[in-house]
């Protein structure tokens, strides 16, 4: 997600009015997706309340796998492809792609964390006596660093870019500057995602 935006261009690479101007008539938060998010969250609450191993496992593994997979796929595959596309095409892609990410990613994150905590309690990994406990603490730190970057840098810039793109005359220099932030922070979150994979597979194997 991060690099998809980051690759849209450097400072000044987006002209004030691109030749093939993409539509500015897009929703920053896709309203039609909200009921789906609501259903998923109700399912998450049901899984936690019922404390069923399968349900907790499902929410944690499915959401966590998608979170990690989407981050790596978009960063390593979509980002470089976008980088080779014409500027109007990049902007057009971003205006369709990023609003969906604003719904998908926070939903995956809350499902992963809430179900993961309950799962760790269920299987006894939360107690300091558990051999997996140090790995869990390591995962808290990894997720913590990712959260600071995602919530403090990536998400605010994402939102600012989307609002800028909705203006009749978007400021190309501003968009380029905001997107540059992603280049640096995406590398750190990518490394963190690899660390998450190592920790989680290690915990699951013991």
């Amino acid at each position, binding site marked *: 997600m991060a690099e998809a935006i980051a690759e849209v261009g450097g400072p000044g690479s987006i002209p004030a009015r691109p030749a093939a101007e993409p539509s500015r008539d897009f929703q920053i938060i896709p309203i039609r997706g909200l009921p789906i998010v609501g259903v998923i969250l109700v399912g998450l609450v049901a899984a*936690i309340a019922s404390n069923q191993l399968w349900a907790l496992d499902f929410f944690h593994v499915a959401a966590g796998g998608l979170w990690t997979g989407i981050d790596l796929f978009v960063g390593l595959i979509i980002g470089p492809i976008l980088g080779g596309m014409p500027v109007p095409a990049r902007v057009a892609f971003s205006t369709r792609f990023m609003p969906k990410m604003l719904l998908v990613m926070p939903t995956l994150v809350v499902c992963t964390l809430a179900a993961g905590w309950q799962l760790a309690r269920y299987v006894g990994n939360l107690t300091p006596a558990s051999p997996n406990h140090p790995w869990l603490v390591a995962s808290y730190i990894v997720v913590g660093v990712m*959260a600071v970057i995602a*919530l*403090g840098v990536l998400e605010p810039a994402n*939102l*600012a870019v989307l609002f800028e793109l909705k203006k009749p005359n978007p400021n190309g220099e501003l968009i380029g500057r905001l997107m540059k932030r992603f280049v640096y922070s995406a590398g750190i979150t990518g490394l963190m995602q690899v660390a998450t994979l190592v920790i989680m597979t290690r915990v699951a194997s013991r």
Partner: protein
Amino acid sequence: MSTAPSPRAKLPPVDRVGAVVIALVIAGGIDLGAHLPQKISLAPVDLLLAASILLVAYNVVSLLRVRDRFAWRMFLRVGRWALLAYLVIAGMLEYVFVLDGTRGSTLVVLTLMLAVFAVNIPMILAYSVARYQPVEPA
């Protein structure tokens, strides 16, 4: 008619201070999470929480000072929806901890940390959008 957005130099660093608040709250959360369900000294977490509350208050005060140089309408528009979303997320996390039997002073500290989290992030998001928007006339 609207005027051009205020230059960055004239606005307080709400986003940077907010990022520090996120780091403080998460550090406190990691400390708590690493020790639960054991009873531990809450002093380090209390310190982190107090510092984060002070910084959020600083952000609020410094934003209020730039009254006429800021796109308040956009700030409130983004902020209220973001607040709704983060209240749902914080509520979900609170629910898990309550369900797991977290009680007493630990629950109070945890609730306050989630409250700071739920207020701070919408403020960063709303500020990040509003700072680049035209300032509406009074």
